[in-house]
């Protein structure tokens, strides 16, 4: 990104000078706004409808898709949390995604650092091996993985799920952080070495703090990726007690077709979507920054 680049999406309000507009411009702008508003409605509409419906009783849901809830049926949320097991799935998800995220960031940063800063025989091979892991479909691995985990006695356990999450998030983490560690100035690590810091110390107290922006970006993407994960838990974590959120909701939805508690289903969807969405809206500036960082690399 060159220094001369100007921010193209700066809204008009940034510039207090009145801008001369001609009719053609206004037409283009209104068409653009119309298209974008349509798009926004398409995105937000279903979400809002889900939110409203989650406060309706199942009878009301069957009545009409439009009626507003007469009295908010908060009981849906209680049902979703306890009867449908969303509460337990939520805690499982936090444990699994949280631990996997911490471990994969640490291992990924370590591996990327060594690959990026040290030249040794086989380093390119390891790098390309990681790259290959990014493109191969997980589906190819899923069947043997089932038996690998069973061999370790980790099938249907949370630690088994965590280690699998870590392994499959590793290539992305390493690939992204590799570029980041490469770009860090060598002078600083040399200065640390002269000051007597060993390799461990240099990494943990010099390099890792300097890589913080990159780590934050990768951590956000990894979080969303792991939070979204469905196939791995469905295939490798079939004990209902250990279900994660995505999996539990999938199971609940396919059940709901028969022993309908649609109110609770909608409530469960809201419980799952809301926390991440709220966090996103609060931190959206940083997150959008992460996406642009991805393209600049």
């Amino acid at each position, binding site marked *: 990104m060159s220094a001369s680049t100007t921010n193209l999406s700066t809204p008009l309000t940034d510039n207090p000078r009145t801008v001369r507009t*001609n009719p053609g411009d206004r037409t283009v702008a209104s068409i653009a706004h119309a298209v974008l508003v349509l798009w926004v409605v398409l995105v937000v509409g279903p979400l809002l409808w889900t939110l409203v419906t989650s406060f309706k009783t199942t009878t009301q849901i069957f009545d009409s898709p439009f009626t507003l809830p007469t009295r908010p049926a908060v009981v849906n949320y209680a049902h979703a949390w306890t009867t449908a097991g969303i509460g337990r799935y939520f805690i499982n998800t936090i444990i699994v995604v949280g631990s996997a995220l911490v471990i994969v960031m640490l291992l990924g940063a370590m591996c990327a650092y060594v690959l990026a800063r040290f030249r040794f025989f086989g380093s390119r091979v390891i790098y390309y091996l990681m790259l290959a892991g990014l493109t191969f479909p997980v589906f*190819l691995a899923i069947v043997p993985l089932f038996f690998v985990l069973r061999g370790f006695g980790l099938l249907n356990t949370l630690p088994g799920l965590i280690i699998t999450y870590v392994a499959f998030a590793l290539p992305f983490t390493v690939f992204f952080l590799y570029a980041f560690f490469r770009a860090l100035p060598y002078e600083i690590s040399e200065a640390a070495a002269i000051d007597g810091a060993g390799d461990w110390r240099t990494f943990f107290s010099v390099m890792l703090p300097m890589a913080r922006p990159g780590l934050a970006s990768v951590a956000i993407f990894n979080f969303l990726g792991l939070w*979204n994960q469905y196939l791995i838990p469905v295939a490798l974590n079939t004990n209902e007690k250990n279900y994660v959120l995505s999996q539990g909701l999938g199971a609940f939805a396919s059940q709901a077709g028969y022993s309908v508690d649609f109110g609770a289903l909608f409530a469960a969807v809201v419980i799952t979507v809301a926390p991440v969405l709220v966090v996103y809206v609060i931190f959206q500036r940083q997150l*959008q920054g992460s996406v642009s960082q991805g393209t600049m*690399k």
Partner: protein
Amino acid sequence: MTAQGFTHRRTPGLARTATPGRRRRRRNWSVDRVTFFLAFLGLPLSVYLIFVVSPFIQAFYYSLTDWTGFNPQMDYVGLSNYTRAFTDNIFLKSIRNSVELAIVVPFVTIALALTLATLITVGGSSHGQIRGLSAAGFYRVISFFPYTIPAIIIGIMWSQVFDPSNGLVNGILTAVGFKQFDSFPWLGNIDTAMPVSMFVIIWGLVGFYMVLFIAAIKGIPSEIYESARIDGAGRFRTALTITLPLIRENVQTAYIYLGIAALDAFVYMQALNSNGGPNNSTLVMSQYLYRTAFTKGQWGLACAMGVVLAAVTMSFAGLVFLVNRLTGGKDSVTLA
């Protein structure tokens, strides 16, 4: 442990770092450095090799056996799993459906994402500085919403929206007078199930790529746009002849990622029509593989299907590279 032995052996030669000079290198091969390499390379690599690389390799081997998993009997059967898969009409149908997804989903997603990104970044006034639309930030923030929602939830939510009797879509359609949609089964009709599924997948993906393209377009120096405008190029001309060529690498990367996502599509399809849809019209390879492995227990056959899926994915990526090459692009992938 092989990974540890590996790093051990390599340790003496690895100090070609920033520190120049031989003397320095010798001294650096200390306990500190040995433990450092064991931990920093050995640990991540062993996890990666055990849980990612070895299953991938095993899959190729299992695909040549008649393994049923729970019984230890496993005979080498050559390519018979592959012949069995390719004579199975349902599997062939699922390949067709997956390829259909891989053709339609990336193209529509990118076209839509590029259009919206262009509108947002250069939709503003044609006088003075190049500027975006007012409220650009608002549109961008909203567009990214679907990316924060797990795919399974997107599927569940839309299957409710398209529900025949109490869904939003039929509610709106009947309200404006289309009575024939009173209880129209969008996901249960052989003609609409696939397009509706594609729509849902695209809904989930567009926002992310739109934000990506906005970032890429913002990386283009505005002088280029200004000079194009002075030369008399209109907005559409600018978008096609300036924006697109300058961000073609991002588009290529997006195409590959979207293709991989569309060839998987397991989560969306499982949420919308877990049984493969009416007459298997939305059954995709990943779903059929999953069913073969975890419901029928035919592990060998499932691995063969996995190999076919991997081959299709690799050919897709190769094809995108080839097309990009032939049309004058460079061979490089930026990571989104």
